[in-house]
């Protein structure tokens, strides 16, 4: 399911997933290339596919404190993902 490195043969079938701060620390990785399993993948689907949420979290339930960015812009949990996208899961922001 997870692809540790890009597959040269079909780079356009993949999404780059990035984690930051406490989420990266909790999961132990900062970046993965993930093959799109379906034509209708969403951030929420990948969130569950990668095991990022707690086990008790239902599959249709987005985490309330984490935000999503697609290609470095804030996006919705049910936004459609395209091959080649960069998807980031952002734990609570604390700037300024």
């Amino acid at each position, binding site marked *: 399911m997870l692809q540790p490195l890009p597959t040269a043969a079909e780079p356009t079938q993949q999404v780059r997933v990035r984690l*930051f701060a406490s989420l990266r620390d909790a999961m132990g990785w900062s970046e993965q290339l993930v093959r799109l399993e379906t034509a209708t993948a969403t951030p929420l689907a990948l969130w569950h596919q990668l095991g990022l949420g707690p086990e008790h979290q239902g599959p249709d339930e987005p985490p309330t404190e984490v935000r999503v*960015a697609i290609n*470095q812009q*804030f996006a919705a949990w049910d936004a459609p993902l395209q091959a080649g996208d960069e998807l980031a899961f952002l*734990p*609570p922001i*604390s*700037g*300024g």
Partner: protein
Amino acid sequence: MAAPWRSIRLEPEPFEPLQALAAWHAALATALGALPAAESHFIGRVRPSSASGEPLAALELEHYPGMTEAQLQALAQAAAAQHGATAVLVHHRVGRVLPGEPIVLVAVAADRRGPALRCGQELLEALKHEVPFWKREWLADGRSSWVTGNTPL
């Protein structure tokens, strides 16, 4: 109106806010011919203690390279346009920041005090909630924890 004049910068090293403002004044005066009639600034510095009250060794500021700069640009543009500000400056530290060191400088120049004050305040709140920065507090004994929210107003 003309597009607002923006100076957005991530600072990986300690910076001196008054020097940054002096350079901004010089650039603005050159670009505009004269400085606008109203100007507001905000400087935020690292507190000496952690959220739980322990002495802080350092604050680590993580960001999302690319998205952080783009969001700062977009928010500065939007706030300046909404309030009719002439020029906006945001300098924000990244990396390891020591207690007492400046972490953020926001400055707004406008024709009147209302836009300068309101734009600055709005931009300050926006960058606390809408720009991907994450703070981690480091204590003297090597423990660290991610800050989960902002300090209250």
